[in-house]
């Protein structure tokens, strides 16, 4: 079968094979073996790399879940993602989120479109934090974990400007009155009304209109921080690439 796909992860296997995990609009997330990919001079050269958008030919597995990748044509290599460290770490974090939030062969064409939009957006130089914030809120929506952003998740009161809000990892948007009865160990951070409204607008937009969105840096950073904690709580595991995204601008403060 022939399908579009975006590569999420590549692993070397045996002497010259590669194990490729990709996301496709027709198969969803899937893993395939590309025999002889490391020695290939024509079929796979320069194509089986993370983040690349390909048109692939693959055979479904006879048993197990491993597809057989027979050919790949390059649609877009998103070359700038490898030449800008911040874009690279952001793209890797996006891949990690897709890997963790999806299951094998769970088809979701909107998620493929969103993934392609995110890599195009990063490749064209759009702010990494803006792209990531938009991607995360839409990913949560498409995978069934959409947080409530128009009202407090606890008392259901509609968001209004004079109230102070928190974005709790366990429940999402929570007003100050409801939060006072919660755990106050100090790791809960407020979220600005402007950020809440921008995220709510993003939820309601279609992917084709996402390029029109403008998120100020402070809002997008705040959103990424809040949504990362929310995602970590859903997944109940650490997000490896998040630390690299967080420290991308200055990983060695003492030598700078």
């Amino acid at each position, binding site marked *: 079968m022939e399908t579009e796909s975006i590569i999420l992860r590549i692993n070397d296997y045996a002497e010259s094979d590669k194990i490729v995990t990709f996301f496709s609009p027709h198969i969803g997330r899937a893993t395939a073996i590309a025999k002889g990919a490391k020695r290939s001079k024509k079929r796979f050269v320069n194509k089986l790399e993370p983040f690349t958008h390909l048109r692939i030919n693959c055979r479904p597995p006879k048993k197990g879940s491993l597809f057989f990748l027979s050919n790949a044509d*390059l649609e877009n290599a998103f070359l700038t993602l*490898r*030449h800008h*460290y911040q874009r690279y770490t952001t793209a890797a974090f996006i891949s990690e989120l897709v890997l963790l939030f999806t299951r094998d062969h769970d088809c979701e064409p909107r998620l493929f479109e969103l993934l392609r939009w995110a890599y195009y957006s990063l490749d064209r130089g759009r702010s990494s934090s803006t792209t990531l914030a938009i991607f995360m809120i839409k990913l949560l929506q498409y995978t069934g974990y959409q947080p409530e952003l128009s009202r407090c998740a606890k008392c259901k009161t509609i968001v209004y400007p004079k109230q102070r809000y928190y974005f709790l990892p366990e429940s999402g948007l929570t007003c100050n009155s409801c939060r006072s009865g919660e755990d106050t160990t100090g790791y809960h951070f407020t979220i600005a009304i402007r950020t809440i409204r921008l995220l709510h607008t993003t939820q309601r937009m279609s992917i084709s209109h996402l390029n029109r969105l403008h998120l100020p840096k402070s809002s997008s950073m705040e959103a990424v921080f809040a949504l990362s904690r929310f995602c970590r709580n859903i997944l109940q595991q650490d997000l490896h690439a998040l630390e690299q995204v967080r420290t991308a601008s200055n990983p060695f403060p003492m030598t700078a």
Partner: protein
Amino acid sequence: MDVIPPPLEQLIKELTKLPGIGKITATRLALYILRKPADNALSLAETLSSLHDSIQLCSTCFAFSEHDPCAICSDQRRNHRVICVVEGPGDLLAIEKTSSFHGVYHILHGVISPLEGIGPKELKIKELLERVRDTEVEEVLIATNLTVPGEATGSFLIDNLQQYPVKVTRLACGISMGMDIKYADQHTLARAIAGRQNFS
């Protein structure tokens, strides 16, 4: 009743921890070792057990070596003002085979791979920056692989080396020797054109 004797099973279990070795290959290797004379197995065991005692990392370039500094770092005929940065020891050997590079090396021991939780702090990058800062280095040649993680690591190094007064170069990328350009992929060909040499 155990089909496989426990010591043999233990050996199979240990061998499967090696990269690229599955249970079938591990069983084949374990049976091969068992069939050969006991001296061979003893020699292999002694070599393995003394490996970590006899090999160490060179404190300058981080290559595996019996001595510190390693043979390359202690060779005064080499140009210590030019450092070639590679991902691993295998890359160093590949460059040495060319006999075209006469400087010294710095081994990163991997590439930045956020998905595996490997960032700059997990590699020997800080040590490279300190080496460039503290010694008289004129040129740093980035020779990481031309894969996405290799290039991203190279870009990270280039960004961080800008703060020092050194020339930073990158391995050239283009058409392989003996290759017909009709069969080159578009990105490689584009890079070869961008990096063309002037002969006039």
